[in-house]
């Protein structure tokens, strides 16, 4: 990789790169994204390497391990270009056939292609699959085609063009105007206008200034930031360099969650490549502008995703939030003006500069511009990452892209916004999704986790889950959050144990009011959303637990009873081996019985039984 001494040099290099690359060269793109990695991406890639070698194709066919291909439900996914044939559920055993049939003979391996669950229609090409048709990828555009460890790949797809334009054709003010005009809002949860944040920071007369990329992604159920950091790390860097130039920052940091080791190594490599090629460091592209980026690893605390807590932990302190104002843009890291934006926000910046603010502002709704990446997970058929224009309805996301619910179960709710979000019931399925509409139904956009729930989920359990999560993660600095969460958790436990009273619902709402009014940070303020939304939309379920002592979804442990059906039990003893308390007894090959006194209702026997002989009621 050369060090780019000028814009012309970069342009010339890109031209030569394009000339060298043959658009028709066969490529095998194995997904090694967050959804495929645990299902064996590495084995599949290794099998391809070996098989291509064996067939003398190693020089002719390009093999890459890429970021998320979107439809993670079909892990491990493989994309064959230039035809754009996409295979799913690929294992290393399928590889010889793919090499033989597709790469050598140009045919499709039918059994590995997408099949519509309802019509049974098969689709081999990406363009024919409904999941991909309804999307508008901007942030995710490059994820399934580039090798995240190759700067050449990024450059070949127009990478660092935004930076070139920013440095050569624009003044810092023009850049901020463009971001402002594009209508880009923060993708990390709050939805604060990005251009306005940059302007505030730019106008503060203090030096040095800092840039931070928030890659803490603490919301459980959300993995879009991980996918972008691992799959297209240079896009994040490019956005940050442009932002730094606009506000006059000299140093940047990327704060990455402790649980994302691969994101750390991918970003680290990208930073080194960018330094070598002159996109980072002194005198970037000979423009006179100096800027460098360092990675800061998180240490495992949800509250550190909150910007002031994050900054405190980067200073070497515990991650307790502090009241705002002052905002970080005025006084942030080491008391200096600091712009902190989310991963996806940064990844949008190069494209906005490159294609123009008007282009971006034309996408989306009146007050929420552009696209949003959602991690669509839970009870839908097609789990994965989707990127849609703001204003797409929940129904389109859940049914058209997500392919509806698993086993055609009934939709109960979609949970958005992480632990501080709310549960949205079926009556709002036609809601166009943007920052403001989600808020109007008692939830929030959050970072983009979208967890679909069917009738097998209990909303009281869901509320307890989030409150317990937040109780564990509350930093304890302010009383309403610390004590409020504790009391709400106590009440929910009473309800789940069949000791609930109807007054409890009003009491929880009262506690919510105090917490949202008086907590210091967003954790405590919005911790009320899961409670308020479930009480409002699923009151009946609370009442069933309170009045009838029943959990109809069969989730709340203390209200359940496990029994063995003597008719179906084969006496295989799988459940006996699993039971932690020795509550199951009976002779081998005979029906087993559960001692209700001993049973702790863990459900392990239920899951262990291959014959569905264990029943819950």
């Amino acid at each position: 990789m050369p060090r780019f001494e000028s814009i012309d040099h970069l342009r010339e290099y890109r031209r030569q790169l394009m000339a060298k690359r043959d658009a028709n060269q066969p490529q095998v793109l194995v997904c090694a994204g967050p959804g495929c990695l645990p299902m064996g991406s590495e084995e599949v890639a290794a099998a391809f390497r070996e098989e291509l070698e064996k067939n003398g194709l190693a020089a002719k066919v390009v093999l890459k391990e890429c970021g998320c291909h979107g439809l993670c439900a079909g892990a491990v996914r493989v994309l064959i270009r230039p035809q754009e044939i996409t295979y799913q559920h690929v294992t290393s055993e399928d590889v010889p056939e793919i090499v033989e049939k597709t790469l050598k003979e140009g045919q499709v391996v039918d059994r590995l292609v997408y099949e519509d669950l309802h019509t049974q229609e098969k689709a081999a090409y990406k363009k024919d699959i409904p999941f991909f048709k309804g999307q508008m990828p901007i942030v995710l555009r490059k994820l399934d085609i580039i090798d995240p460890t190759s700067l050449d790949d990024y450059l070949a797809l127009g990478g660092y063009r935004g930076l070139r334009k920013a440095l050569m054709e624009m003044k810092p003010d023009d850049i901020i105007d463009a971001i402002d005009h594009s209508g880009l809002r923060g993708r990390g949860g709050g939805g604060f206008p990005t251009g306005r944040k940059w302007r505030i920071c730019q106008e503060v007369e203090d030096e040095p200034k800092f840039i931070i990329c928030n890659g803490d992604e603490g919301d459980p159920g959300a993995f879009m930031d991980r996918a972008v950091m691992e799959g297209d790390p240079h896009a994040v860097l490019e956005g940050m360099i442009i932002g730094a130039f606009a506000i006059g920052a000299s140093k940047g940091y990327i704060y990455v969650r402790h649980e994302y080791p691969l994101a750390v190594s991918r970003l680290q490599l990208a930073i080194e490549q960018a330094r070598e090629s002159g996109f980072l460091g002194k005198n970037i592209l000979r423009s006179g502008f100096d800027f460098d980026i360092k990675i800061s690893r998180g240490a495992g605390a949800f509250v550190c995703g909150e910007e002031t807590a994050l900054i405190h932990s980067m200073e070497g302190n515990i991650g307790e939030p502090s009241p705002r104002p002052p905002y970080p843009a005025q006084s942030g890291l080491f008391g200096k003006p600091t712009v902190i934006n989310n991963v996806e926000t940064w990844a949008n910046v190069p494209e906005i500069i490159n294609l123009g603010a008007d282009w971006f502002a034309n996408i989306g709704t009146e007050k929420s511009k552009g696209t949003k990446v959602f991690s669509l997970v839970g009870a839908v058929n097609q789990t994965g990452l989707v990127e849609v224009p703001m204003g797409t309805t929940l129904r389109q996301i859940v049914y058209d892209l997500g392919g509806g619910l698993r086993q055609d179960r009934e939709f109960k709710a979609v949970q958005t916004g992480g632990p501080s979000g709310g549960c949205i019931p079926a009556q709002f399925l036609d809601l166009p999704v943007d920052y403001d509409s989600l808020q109007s139904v008692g939830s929030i956009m959050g970072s983009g986790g979208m967890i679909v729930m069917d009738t097998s989920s209990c909303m009281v359990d869901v509320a307890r889950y989030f409150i317990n999560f937040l109780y564990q993660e509350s930093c304890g600095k302010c009383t309403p959050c610390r004590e409020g969460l504790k009391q709400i958790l106590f009440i929910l436990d009473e309800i789940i144990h069949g000791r609930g009273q109807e007054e409890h619902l009003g009491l929880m709402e009262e506690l919510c009011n105090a917490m949202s009014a008086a907590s210091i940070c967003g954790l405590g303020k919005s911790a009320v959303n899961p409670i308020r939304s479930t009480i409002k939309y699923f009151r009946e379920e609370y009442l069933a637990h309170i009045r009838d002592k029943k959990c109809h979804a069969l989730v709340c442990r203390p209200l359940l009873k496990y029994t063995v059906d003597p008719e179906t039990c084969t006496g295989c003893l799988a459940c006996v081996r699993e039971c932690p308390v020795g509550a199951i007894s009976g002779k081998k090959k005979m029906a087993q019985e559960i001692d209700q006194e001993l049973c702790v209702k863990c459900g392990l026997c239920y899951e262990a039984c291959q014959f569905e002989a264990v029943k819950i009621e």
Partner: protein
Amino acid sequence: MDLPRLETILSRYEGESADLIPVLQDIQDAYSYLPKEELHVVSERLQVPLTQIYSVATFFKMFSLIPKGKHQIKVCTGTTCHLKGSHRVAESLSHRLGVEVGYTTKDMQFSLDTVGCLGSCAQAPVMMVDDKYFGRTTVDKVPKILKLYK
């Protein structure tokens, strides 16, 4: 105390108080816990009072003041995994290893912990052993996974 080992870690940093967390992270990674004597040295070098080191070490989940096992098992209890029954996976592991969540087996082979979300939610329930992810880990897969490390 193995001073040269600690020196290698300290030499990567400029010795400022803001380096505290990265230094502790490197020690945790290298030693699998934060040994007391080492923390005394860190306190001197970075000019950070021991009390602050302890407050940081106990605030963040990744730090441990007692040694962790050779293999670290993390079961995801994030929302998606919770809904798909990840607590049963944790319970099964706990039962099979004979250790409570949050603790280490007597032979120092395994530490068992639960975490918020591992970012592979599409394959819930998810667990991790050291740096390797396992997807769709139902209870019946637990023995097979453990076998890989025994």
